[in-house]
């Protein structure tokens, strides 16, 4: 059977998950496993003078307590995932011995009979700290005379990276129009509903350690462990359990806890398990997003972009776990637009907060926020329709491959492989019924309501290298086993890869089983991150499927005495041209070629062992794209924002299972709504987290997420045989920009309501960044209040929380 690619097949995973038979890490039967709990720093920056564990060791049920200094064999820095020669790296130890750099950093570990007892013992550990000044924002990090986030560093700047194309400076200086803005995107977290967890068991008889880890990248974890432990790769087996409760980026990173837990299992010769609780997750799972953009655009009187310059401050957190996020940001700024002159300047700063790394969207939402907010400001400045300004600047469908002029994070020149941005934008606007929405908005304004429309368009680098692999094997039952290195966290791999394999082999999906995320089953792999798996593991499975098909046909042909070209599959049988009388079952094929007869020569022509492996290495990243359009209503009295309508246009190339892609997009969108309106892990000036529970860190529920209408375009990627691109993040990326654009648009009516109509805004082209200037209107005799009205409220932050809306309204002089 063919045609499974592209069909909305129902998920195989669901039956077990719906009946409570899922196997998440904490559900695994690990008899007599001891519980591990970490003592974590209560200070954002402090010197550790001493740690007294005597009392904890005496506590009931406690088996062991270790400090960093008790585990010197693993006291080695964890490597950043993405490096740069200029990076000033500061060592991130599994458990630091001398100085802590964020609230939540592990300082000791307790092993006890159960988690209750382990937590009891944590309270008995006495740590003597000297508290040091802390840095809790990039602004503080870069301030003159700022204290150092790490006492032994020479500055808070981790790296400065510049990307250039053309001469932005000159182009800005000569541009007929020039606008600038300052935009801040706050931190945000992954918040998979299952937090992180690691369990480990040591087999003294074989010297092997088995590690169960909720990681998105088991092979990466094994690689790191083998380096740190100085153990052979094959002595470490990292298994991502069959069910993992969401990933979203933080689980793709490698953490100190992942080093400590298996090591403790080996030290004690006992099975141990650490299940991160939500309190820990808030202060120790990596976050993302924190950036400040000072962006400047130059454009002609038609709104055509001439230059963009973006000065980006990136909050790297206490350590650099990798530069993937800020480097993705810099290359995402230009987006779908033709911009002859580009200049981005990145300052990645160390701060005393949880380290940052990718969270669904990974550096892109911030860039899109800055750029798309400016596109709206250009429209406002020229009194043009925001959609029209975008139209005039879009890369056209016949311009691919399109070289942007700067470099992507995979090291290749930023080259968009395919897409049709104009069709995407128009399709999205049509679905929204843009003209009607504008009329309704104007009507609502006339009634005194504050309704606004926001658009955001983006391009998303995805499907990154280096490679991903798959192993396909005819097993002895006559089933085909697909083994992927990649580990899933709910994306439906068991279904999707069965679809791809079925299509490539030409057999029924029922004959295919998929297993994932176990280094013991397949030697090489990279992991699930950066929306890369469909475009890398997908082709690997597809190619392997074709090879396996040839092997099956070849064997069957020998057994049936015909040519391989005559073989057709029917159910679990290979037939001679569809004739059931002349057929062999897959099991018979396995019996001959795989099982064989002990000591007996194989029948002539039969090649042994029907197993193929295939690794797919894309020549460079693929680029998905999308457009979001939102209609919102703002209540300026409360600052509340209600999303009235939302349309997503999405192009991720060819699609394997449309309903699963829709699920990825809509799920990503909910995350985007969180970033746009709700989520903020606030830190105070001392680096203390202020929103470390779900009462304060507000994840969206069904009541906050509006229904989305989806519009799909499928421009295949030429870079892989499936034509696939990534779908996991597109729902998230432009949502904060689209919502902020809509909110700012909704508040435009306030300027008119104030009684002073100042016509078009400041045309001087020299607005100070931040949009907070308030000019006195000359010749206005109308008294102070209305005279200070210069323009409508500015939305310069994400998330656009009610108090930010309220503040923007107030600062605009109302």
């Amino acid at each position: 059977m063919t045609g499974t690619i592209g069909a909305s097949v129902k998920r195989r995973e669901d039956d077990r998950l719906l009946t409570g038979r899922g196997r998440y890490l904490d559900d695994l039967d690990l008899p007599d496993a001891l519980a591990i709990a970490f003592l974590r720093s209560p200070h954002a920056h402090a010197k550790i003078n001493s740690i007294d564990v005597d009392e904890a060791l005496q506590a009931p049920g406690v088996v062991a307590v270790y400090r960093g200094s008790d585990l010197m064999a693993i006291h080695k820095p964890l490597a950043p995932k993405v490096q740069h020669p200029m990076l000033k790296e500061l060592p991130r130890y599994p458990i630091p011995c001398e100085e802590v750099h964020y609230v939540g950093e592990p300082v000791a570990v307790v092993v006890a009979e159960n988690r209750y007892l382990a937590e009891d013992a944590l309270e008995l550990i006495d740590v003597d700290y000297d508290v040091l000044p802390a840095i809790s924002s990039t602004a503080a990090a870069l301030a003159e005379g700022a204290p150092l986030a790490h006492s032994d560093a020479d500055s808070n700047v981790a790296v400065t990276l510049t990307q250039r194309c053309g001469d932005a400076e000159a182009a800005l200086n000569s541009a007929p129009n020039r606008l600038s803005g300052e935009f801040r995107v706050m931190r945000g977290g992954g918040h998979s509903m299952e937090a992180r967890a690691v369990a480990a068991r040591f087999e003294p008889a074989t010297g092997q350690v088995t590690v169960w880890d909720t990681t998105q990248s088991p092979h990466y974890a094994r690689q790191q462990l083998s380096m740190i432990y100085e153990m052979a790769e094959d002595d470490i087996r990292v298994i991502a359990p069959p069910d993992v409760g969401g990933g979203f980026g933080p689980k793709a990173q490698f953490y100190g806890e992942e080093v400590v837990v298996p090591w403790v299992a080996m030290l004690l010769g006992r099975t141990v398990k650490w299940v991160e609780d939500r309190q820990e997750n808030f202060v120790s799972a990596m976050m993302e997003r924190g950036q400040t953009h000072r962006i400047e655009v130059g454009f002609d009187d038609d709104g055509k972009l001439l230059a963009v310059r973006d000065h980006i401050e990136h909050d790297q957190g206490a350590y650099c776990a990798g530069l993937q996020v800020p480097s993705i940001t810099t290359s995402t700024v230009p987006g779908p637009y033709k911009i002859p002159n580009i200049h981005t300047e990145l300052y990645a700063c160390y701060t005393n907060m949880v380290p940052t790394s990718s969270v669904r969207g990974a550096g892109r939402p911030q860039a899109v926020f800055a750029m798309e907010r400016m596109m709206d400001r250009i429209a406002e400045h020229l009194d043009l329709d925001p959609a029209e300004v975008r139209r005039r600047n879009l890369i056209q469908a016949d311009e691919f491959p399109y070289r942007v002029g700067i470099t992507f994070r995979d090291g290749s020149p930023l080259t968009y492989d395919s897409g049709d941005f104009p069709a995407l934008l128009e399709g999205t606007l049509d679905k929204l019924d843009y003209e009607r929405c504008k009329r309704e908005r104007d009507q609502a304004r006339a009634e005194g309501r504050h309704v606004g429309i926001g658009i955001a368009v983006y391009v998303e680098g995805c499907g990154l290298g280096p490679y991903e692999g798959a192993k396909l094997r005819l097993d002895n039952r006559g089933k085909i086993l697909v083994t992927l290195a990649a580990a899933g966290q709910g994306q439906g791999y068991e279904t999707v890869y069965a679809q791809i394999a079925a299509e490539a082999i030409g057999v029924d999906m029922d004959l295919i089983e998929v297993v994932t995320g176990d280094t013991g089953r397949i030697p090489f792999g990279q992991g699930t991150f950066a929306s890369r798996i469909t475009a890398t593991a997908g082709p690997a499975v597809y190619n392997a499927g074709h090879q396996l098909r040839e092997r099956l046909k070849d064997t069957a042909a020998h057994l049936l005495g015909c040519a391989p070209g005559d073989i057709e599959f029917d159910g679990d049988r290979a037939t001679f041209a569809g004739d059931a009388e002349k057929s062999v079952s897959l099991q018979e094929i396995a019996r001959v070629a795989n099982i064989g007869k002990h000591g007996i020569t194989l029948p002539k022509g039969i090649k042994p062992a029907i197993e193929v492996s295939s690794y797919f290495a894309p020549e460079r990243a693929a680029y998905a794209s999308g457009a979001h359009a939102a209609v919102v209503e703002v209540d300026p009295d409360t600052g509340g924002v209600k999303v009235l309508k939302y349309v997503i246009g999405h192009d991720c190339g060819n699609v394997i299972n449309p309903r699963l892609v829709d699920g990825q997009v809509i799920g990503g969108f909910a995350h985007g709504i969180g970033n746009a309106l709700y989520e903020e892990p606030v830190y105070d000036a001392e680096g203390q987290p202020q929103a470390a529970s779900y009462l304060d860190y507000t994840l969206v529920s069904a009541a906050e997420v509006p229904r989305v209408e989806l519009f799909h375009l499928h421009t295949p990627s030429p870079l892989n045989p499936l034509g696939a691109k990534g779908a996991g993040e597109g729902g998230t990326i432009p949502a904060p920009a689209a919502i902020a654009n809509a909110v700012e648009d909704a508040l435009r009516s306030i300027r008119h309501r104030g009684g002073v109509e100042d016509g078009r805004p400041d045309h001087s082209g020299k607005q100070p960044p931040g949009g907070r200037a308030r000019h006195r209107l000359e010749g206005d005799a109308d008294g102070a209040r209305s005279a200070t009205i210069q323009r409508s409220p500015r939305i310069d932050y994400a998330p656009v929380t009610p108090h930010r809306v309220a503040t923007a309204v107030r600062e605009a002089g109302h």
Partner: protein
Amino acid sequence: MKPGRFTYHAPRSLDAALALLAEHGDEAKVLAGGQSLVPMLNFRLAQVDHLVDINRIGPEFAGPKVTGDTVTIPALVRQRVLERSAEVAAVLPVFAAALPQVAHPQIRNRGTVCGSCAHADPAAELPTVMSVVDSTFRIASARGTREVDAADFFQFHLTTALEPDELLTEVAIRVPQPGTRMAFKEFATRRGDFALVAVAASATVDESGTVTACRIAAAGVAPTPQRLHDAEAVVIGSTVDDEAIAAAEAAASAAVDPTGDIHATAEHRRRLTAVLVRRALAEIKGDQS
């Protein structure tokens, strides 16, 4: 996030519960619905030696009673039970208006009305409502019983008039006079969140449409529910006309002195108070704006 060690007691009568509280006093805590206490235990923000679970002290504490001119809400009345009581709604519809804004059904199925009052979160809905209805808090201990009114019961952030050995046995509410209308308005970040600011208002109108009595209270602006006496004063004697509403709005804004936090600046909370006072009074007047 596992609670620290404690001894669990499940007394079978009020007296047995009071005896345990008398014995363990400072080292004991009452466990009612557990929807505030257990999270604090799980976070180890609260540590107790003895937990006195009152859930088994008797079925007579489980349902609200409407007798004559009084509604009594005993200690084990779940928030969800009060919300759905048609009998109570007939005389005090404000509860059915406010309760759906308290958390979610899964929380209200356990959380008690008395527990919410005893917990006294400054952003909680129920204490605010209790501050505008004519409520009496009935308190018992092995030493005897006593009664306090809302103004005396709510003392500070998470602090009430309850002594460590005391139990809030019920809240008694006088059925409002004929001609009384109430409204409850809240602004919260998400559905079911604690209020950023909430306002409860009650006004009694005579035949001519003139307000003879008024109470307005706000949550989220002070360590306890704050009565807005100046706003009440401008409403009394008015017909809740636009002018009175505007004056009340201004009075409310002037009366509160909130502190800012990560969810709202002080200024935002002040503004919300004024806006919600306006909306509550408009609803009382009969406008749905």
